[in-house]
């Protein structure tokens, strides 16, 4: 049951929200836990059992760590067991057809790495030992985060879950953002994927330089919309349930550097990996070589988060090397370049890098050759028809990938403080009018999206 399935939208979400809304405040965590179990349960008994077993083992590892609180050696052994268990499962199940599963279970990386992060926090003393099994499990399997994140630090979760609240106002704001993400998936991503697939079907000999750049752009936009739509939906659902966390996507294609791209493209995962895997390592403390290795390692791990195969690893590796060059070699030189040109330069690196995700090595080198003008004309008419057939999703994809329409998003889900209504009274001045407009936009987007997803 994905977020964009009609089952989720018309049955699980309204009934679940009603159930959650009617539950007394002190039982809200339990009701959210039950909803999360129900959501994950439809994956099938095997996957459900696997997830429950994994989370339960992690819970007992953390309890074991508490038992050995005064023995650092044993605590280290327990942490190592947690690392091996979670990394091992992640790599074995995610590395293709030899894995124990036909498909990677939905949300596996989220619950594995959430638990892993918690174990590291507990080991370092950054987080308290959690005795409440339901509270710990909910952190790992909270249903808005399960399909694709975002990642959340345990302390941030704990502060929110203890003060869990539900307001109709939140529901409305969260729903607006959820619909925004849903429509990104339905109205932009679907068309974008079709045009990208159509472009990849064009024989290499008929492609021009511009057409391959467009192909690379479409690939990058497809990945951005595929992931960020889930991020928006997850953030929206979180707001509806009374949680506040960022989707982790902040217009990554206008990044000024590849380092900035990592923060903007699923930034919660990047910061999570850097915090728990390449922690406390920086150029200042450890020197060039160590810093470079850890920057590259974190990039490769982020690449593997998306795809545990050679494509994901290479993508991370290439961007990791560029990050090292940016942060450790050409830092001063790059700072002298005007921002606009830095963005163009970054885009020129990022777009071809996304071809690595999709193509095998020979294909990639063929496309890379055309990108720099080897053996191909500058322009051509072959892809004109494909482009004109998808002009609207393409135009929308480009427009919504830059922040010129940020006010629309703010209108759909304006910022608020601590889960409470904003200080400004809603009825004051134009607030009510804006709410009605946002409701209208949400309604149109939802209707249009549902029609397109049928």
């Amino acid at each position: 049951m994905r977020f964009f399935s009609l089952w989720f939208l018309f049955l699980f979400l309204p009934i679940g929200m009603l159930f959650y809304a009617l539950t007394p405040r002190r039982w809200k965590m339990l009701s959210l836990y039950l909803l999360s179990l129900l959501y994950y349960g439809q994956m099938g008994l095997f996957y459900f059992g696997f997830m429950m077993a994994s989370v339960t083992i992690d819970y007992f590892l953390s309890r074991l760590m508490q038992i050995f609180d005064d023995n650092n050696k044993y605590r280290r052994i327990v942490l190592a067991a947690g690392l091996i268990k979670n990394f091992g499962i992640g790599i074995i199940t995610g590395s293709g057809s030899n894995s124990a599963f036909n498909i990677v279970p939905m949300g596996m990386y989220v619950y594995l790495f959430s638990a892993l992060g918690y174990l590291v926090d507990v080991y370092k003393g950054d987080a308290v030992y959690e005795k409440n099994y339901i509270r710990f499990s909910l952190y790992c399997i909270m249903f808005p985060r399960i399909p694709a994140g975002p990642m959340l630090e345990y302390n941030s979760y704990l502060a929110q879950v203890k003060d869990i609240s539900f307001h109709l106002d939140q529901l409305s704001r969260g729903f607006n953002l959820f619909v925004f993400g849903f429509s990104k998936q339905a109205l932009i991503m679907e068309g974008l994927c079709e045009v990208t697939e159509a472009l990849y079907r064009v024989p290499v000999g008929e492609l021009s330089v511009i057409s391959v750049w467009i192909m690379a752009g479409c690939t990058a936009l497809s990945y951005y919309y595929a992931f960020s739509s889930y991020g928006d939906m997850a953030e929206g659902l979180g707001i509806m349930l009374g949680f506040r966390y960022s989707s982790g996507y902040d217009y990554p294609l206008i990044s000024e550097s590849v380092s900035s791209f990592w923060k903007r493209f699923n930034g919660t995962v990047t910061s999570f990996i850097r915090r728990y895997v390449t922690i406390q390592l920086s150029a200042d403390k450890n020197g060039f070589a160590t810093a470079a290795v850890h920057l590259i390692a974190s990039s490769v791990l982020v690449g593997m988060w998306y795809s545990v195969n050679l494509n994901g690893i290479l993508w991370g590796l290439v961007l990791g090397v560029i990050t090292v060059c940016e942060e450790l070699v050409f830092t001063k030189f790059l700072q002298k370049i005007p921002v606009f040109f830095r963005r163009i330069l970054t885009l020129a690196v990022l777009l071809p890098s996304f071809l690595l995700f999709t193509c095998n090595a020979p294909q990639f080198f063929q496309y890379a050759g055309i990108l720099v003008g080897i053996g191909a004309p500058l322009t051509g008419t072959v892809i004109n028809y494909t482009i004109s057939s998808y002009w609207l999703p393409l135009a929308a994809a480009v427009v919504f990938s830059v922040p010129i329409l940020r006010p629309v998003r703010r209108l759909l889900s304006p910022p608020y403080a601590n889960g409470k209504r904003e200080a400004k009274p809603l009825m004051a001045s134009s607030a009510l009018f804006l709410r009605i407009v946002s409701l209208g936009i949400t309604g149109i987007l939802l209707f249009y999206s549902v029609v397109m997803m049928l």
Partner: protein
Amino acid sequence: MFKKWILFLINLVSLLLISAIPICLLFDSPNLAGSMLPHWKGVPTLSEKEISDYTEANNKIRTFLGDAPSLEQLQVKFKRFSGQQMQDNIFLAKDAMYENIPQPDPQSNATSNNANGMLEFVYRYYIPTYVMIVPTACAIKQNDVPQNAPLFNQRNYIDDIYRSISGVITSTDVYTTLFASMDEYIYYRTIPELTGLGGYYLYSVLGEKLSLRTRSLAQFEQIYLNHNCYGSLYQRLPYPDVQPDIYSYYRMSLFRREYRMTRYEPDGYIHRYNDIILPQIMETSQEITDVVLGGRAPLITIKVDSPYKERLLIFSDETVKSYIPFLAAHYNEIYIVDLELADNDTLDKLGIKHFDQVLFSYSVDTFFQKDFSEKLMYLAK
């Protein structure tokens, strides 16, 4: 207090919005019991009574609302607005739909095999043989398909086939004639077939090649059966802007002909009729054009009460339905074989040596998609 109520109402509307869409979905019932339910993935199976009650209730609502557009139609329209003038491999013209014929698979040898099979057949029997490859609507109506659409060049494809059999089989070029009449109603708008008028153009070209005294269109009476029909393309893709088709067939009016048609069905049954046009099956047939000959069958034989003595053997696909009402009047007996459906037992019944002429008549897409060379080789043994 009042303000709080207003605020609550706005939030309530937001919630109701979630449940408003399923109600819209329930209105979506072009063929309710059959086609709407699969959209609602995962809904438990409904009993027949529930479906019938549901259909009845929805029909009442639809009558009350008038012609509410279905969501499927809206989807097609939205996609077209967003630039997709080809959906599900169908070109959406201003008021018509044309199936796109993609390039033949380079790995497939169907075309050359079929051409070789025809040649082997001719070398075996030495009966005057003719071939007619009929272009599809998207080639002839190419002015109506989107600009720059990567159309398969059917003209070149047909010419290549004709070249490969020249000197042995007489080719019939209908492309030029159909292309010259592209602005006329020669292809249905929602059915991937030629109209009766298109069939007449095929007959007029074919007649000359077969040395027949072709009749003018005025000598045929046009009988209308349906002014508002939507064919299989529309069933696949409910494009709301398409104009309905007008279905009519032609019958020779100057000299009446009596026909006795026998259909050898795939299941072994044999059905006999006193005509080649069967309006009585209009309601039950998959496509309204099946009214002619009753649709496809492995073998259809037609005995004609006419002054002519010639016997014609036709190997064909659906294209035969368009021109047979005109052609049948010129023969004493016609056998129509559908090589895709016919088995060896059926082929054994043919007695090919007794035919005066043989015609291979296929549309472009059938010719490169279906390989029937094995059956032709069997006949040539």
